[in-house]
């Protein structure tokens, strides 16, 4: 009996210390929320999460020494998830706004963007003023939604996914889509019957959102972002996804 108890004690001590060792050696895991319906910033290909934002966060994680666990969810659910601590970070082409900054932290900007109007090639709509009296589709909870909601005489249809908004344009339910310019451009590349019109509306910066429960993580993200801008990784990633179009480039 004494022998058995002794062996049990030694075995559990062994397992326990192995566990401790693992804990000490393992990199912290950060849960990052992402909405993979926002090409070319985040998409899903063959079950894997890919895109500019994804590569960006992976590069920052590598240089700051933490592991990333990707959690896909709807865009409108990202900030609530950060508020409850379900995820520690979120990256989703998310514009830094004062309202959002009240409930989450934002990293320094990593991309400069703006909204644009997408219409069918035979549409009479040429700029923002022409949207009066029309039906415009966009994505729920985004800065496009916020901007359109403030305008008068426009019927706004809000969808959970931007694909549904694009479909609405294609089948005639909406006469235009207003959304982040890079995503519109990306869509127009593969759909020859639409194009963007008018000049770039609003000027907005994308930031990585960090849960307010984790201020240390914010410091790491900003430090990592700074490092990859300095060592050229950021520029390399930018060129990979946006080529020579410098509109979104953050210049320091």
């Amino acid at each position, binding site marked *: 009996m004494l022998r058995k108890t002794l062996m049990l004690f030694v075995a559990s001590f062994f397992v326990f210390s192995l566990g401790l060792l693992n804990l000490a050696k393992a990199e912290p895991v950060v849960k990052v929320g992402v909405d993979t319906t926002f090409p070319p910033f985040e998409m899903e290909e063959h079950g894997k999460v890919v895109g500019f934002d994804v590569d960006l966060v992976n590069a920052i994680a590598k240089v700051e020494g933490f592991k990333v666990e990707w959690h896909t969810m709807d865009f409108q659910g990202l900030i609530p998830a950060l508020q409850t601590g379900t995820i520690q970070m979120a990256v989703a082409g998310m514009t830094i706004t004062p309202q*959002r900054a009240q*409930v989450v932290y934002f990293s320094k900007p990593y991309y400069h963007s703006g909204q644009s109007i997408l219409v069918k090639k035979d549409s009479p709509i040429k700029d923002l003023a022409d949207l009066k009296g029309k039906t415009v589709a966009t994505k729920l909870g985004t800065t496009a939604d916020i901007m359109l909601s403030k305008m008068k005489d426009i019927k706004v249809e809000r969808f959970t996914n931007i694909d549904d908004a694009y*479909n609405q344009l294609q*089948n005639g339910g909406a006469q235009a889509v207003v959304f982040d310019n890079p995503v519109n451009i990306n869509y127009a590349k593969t759909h020859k019957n639409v194009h963007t019109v008018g000049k770039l509306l609003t000027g907005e910066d994308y930031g990585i959102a960090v849960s307010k429960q984790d201020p240390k993580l914010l410091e790491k993200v900003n430090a990592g972002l700074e490092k990859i801008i300095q060592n050229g990784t950021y520029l390399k990633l930018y060129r990979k996804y946006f080529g020579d179009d410098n509109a979104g480039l953050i210049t320091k």
Partner: protein
Amino acid sequence: MGGFFNVIWQNLPQLIYGAKLTLFYSVVVIIVATFLGLIFALFKISHNPIFKKTGEVYVHIFRGLPLLVEIFYIYFALPMILPLHKWFHPYFTPIAGILALSLNEGAYITEIIRAGILSIGKGQTEAAYSIGMTKYKTMRYIILPQAFKRMIPPLVNQFIQTIKDTSLLSVISISELTRQGQIIISTTFASLQIWTAVAVIYLAMIFTLTGISGYLERRFKIDRR
């Protein structure tokens, strides 16, 4: 503590607007679905093979698909082959929502009405025929009124389900109560307060319907055979 609930009062008009839309869609769908249910129930108990088959196919399809899929199909799939947005401009969104919900609820109501009718003993029908009543008169004056009493509890159940199912219309951008909740939260980030307010409003609506149903049951004395 009042500051915590402020966001509810500030957005109450929007929530009420959503609740009104929820009520609107619920009432319209209940009416259309009951109408459909009555027609297809009579089809299913008909001796005519074409009517019978039509009724069976209708119930199989619309009970056999998730409501969300039915909504997506009518709203996103069909417009790709038919210019539905042009035909019904600018009402295709509400029409699609009402259609999808009514077809789905109608399939369940078909079965409720059919069960109610079949539960009335053959003796009633035979007695009616023996004094020279036509099939129509029998159904209209003898069978259906008696069946109706039996159908009240399951029908009210289905009507409550309909109110809840209207929340799925949020996915085709119909601004009913659930969607209003999502919209308000997307700018205020007050998930706890807003979802609580939405839940309370739904409970109030369904509680009222249950109260009406209790009144109907007492009025028609359905606990007495």
